[in-house]
């Protein structure tokens, strides 16, 4: 390891997880996205120092890691909340009222899209089609929970629900939907 980083940010266990992926690919650079995902998951962001440490592990330059990281909308440099919620704004959701839901969620938490609630529990982001259009207007949490069809009251319940923290192994059907209207 680089002598200038005596106390590495990325813990050894995470490094092992990254190294364990090397045999899957012909070169180490291909592990860039998986490594970024592991780091983002661990720190809820990709800190600047971690970037250099990933580069070190993959034997590429920090600039290369940064180049890749910045291309994708997913990785953040500031920590996201305990649960990240994406609200879809694409066509099938928009025409069923999706555009308003993002606004509603943000105003209830007093944040802008992409922002995190002051208690650090929820980050709300806009998204293009989440591939769950049968539940439009729909939202997705980064623990895998899906929500929809939503309306404003059910968005409120969604926010209360995710404020309780992430879950493991959610079902593939929505965990919350607006009551069907007659």
């Amino acid at each position, binding site marked *: 390891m680089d002598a200038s980083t005596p106390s590495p940010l990325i813990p050894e266990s995470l490094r092992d997880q990254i190294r364990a992926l090397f045999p899957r*690919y012909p070169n180490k650079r291909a592990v860039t996205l998986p490594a970024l995902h592991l780091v983002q998951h661990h720190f809820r962001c990709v800190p600047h120092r971690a970037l250099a440490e990933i580069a070190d592990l993959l034997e590429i330059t920090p600039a290369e890691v940064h180049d890749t990281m910045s291309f994708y909308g997913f990785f953040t440099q500031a920590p996201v909340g305990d649960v990240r919620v994406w609200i879809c704004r694409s066509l099938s959701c928009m025409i069923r009222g999706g555009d308003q839901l993002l606004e509603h969620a943000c105003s209830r938490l007093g944040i802008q899209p992409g922002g995190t609630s002051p208690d650090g529990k929820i980050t709300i982001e806009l998204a293009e089609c989440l591939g769950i*259009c049968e539940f439009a207007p729909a939202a997705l949490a980064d623990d895998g929970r899906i929500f929809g069809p939503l309306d404003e009251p059910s968005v409120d319940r969604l926010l209360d629900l995710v404020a309780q923290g992430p879950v493991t192994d959610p079902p593939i059907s929505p965990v919350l939907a607006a009551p069907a209207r007659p």
Partner: protein
Amino acid sequence: MPAFEPVLSRNFQVPDSHTLRVYTERGGYSTARHVLTTMTPEAVVQVVKDSELRGRGGAGFATGLKWTFLPKDRKETFMCVNADESEPATFNNRWLMERDPHQLLEGILISCFATQAQIAYIYIRFEYINATRILEQAIAEARAAGHLGRNIYGSGFDCEIYVHRGAGAYICGEETGLIESLEGKRGWPRIKPPFPAIEGAFRKPTVVNNVETLCCVPHILERGASWFRSIGTPKSYGPKLYTVSGHVNRPVCVELPLGVTARELIDEHAGGCWKGRKVKAVVPGGISMGLMSADELDVKLDFEEIRKTGCLGLGTAALTVLDDHTSLVDYLYNTCRFFAHESCGQCTPCREGTAWFYKTLKRIKAGGGRLEDLDLLRSLAQNLGITPGTTICGLADGAAWPIRNALDKFRPEFEDYIRTHQNPAAGPTPLQEAIFHGRPADPLITQIGLSKPSTPASALNPPPPTPSTATH
């Protein structure tokens, strides 16, 4: 014609359909075992070729033929399974992966054997969090049971399947964008040729196929090429998972023979248009494919006939239904916003063009539109994409097609909107004015191939009409 029997979705409603136990109880992996132990790779390719299976990822390219493009003397081959499914309104791959992951794995295994690829990467969009988890469990189960790994079924063939997660970029669904992304770089599509079959992932011969395409493969090998060709319409054979969303009572993912009509899908499978309203327009196959009007609902949704409507193609066969209360300005604004957001920025016409579309639609929506904007949009749309040859990949075509179709089929609605929604505060920017009037940016206009407005410049020079003059 015998009643249609769903095959791709046959396990969807079975409890625990995602487990190896249920899959094998229902006959799973017996085709792979048969193929690997009794057939040659060439024979498998031939069967797939004979079935005339066409890719389900959007382009509809013949799968068997694509496999024959791999160099004969290759030493190493990779398979990339395209599970990026980000085309708005599309979710059939998600159903296939969540509800029957082993069907996909069996399809990958047989296809890897046919193409002699020993490693397959399933490039799955990050948002498919549950599908990722389910696939990873399925791979572990299949591996433990000897359906993957070394010397599978004693055939001497080795195969590993790895899940590789994307990170929220639509463009990584384009096959070479996917490959670049897999290699750990930004997802910038490559200039073709060389095609991936010659030089793909890690500069090695590579097969890229969609999830649904590969799910068809075990069934073709089990039931034969002529069975496959007995389903569907000429040049569009086999079963297809259609999805219907938007203004319908019951959004669905349903398996039907290729070539059903939008009317059938909406009325018989999706519970009809919601709230008792009428259908105004239908997006046929993900928003890239353009727009069908209500008069075109009886056109067969297959790879060929749909082109008669002026749409780009069948795409992902993902319908979005728009009811007669929908403003097509909103529709077009939404598609333009999507493509401006998702253009990878590599080609100038696409990066600037999609941004221009979006800005213009935003302005029209806000009440600053001019009738001339429609001509400008239309001519820009004509000149953008791989069809006219100005970009590297098809994202640009997908951005242009909704504009082409919407303006060709519904122009009066846009004109009406512009006339009746004038808001002086939302006028065009000076640069937009200058470019439209051909001054002083003439060279730019010639470069991007725009024809000059046919109206004499003097008629256009006055500022945009005030609401009072524009509202008739």
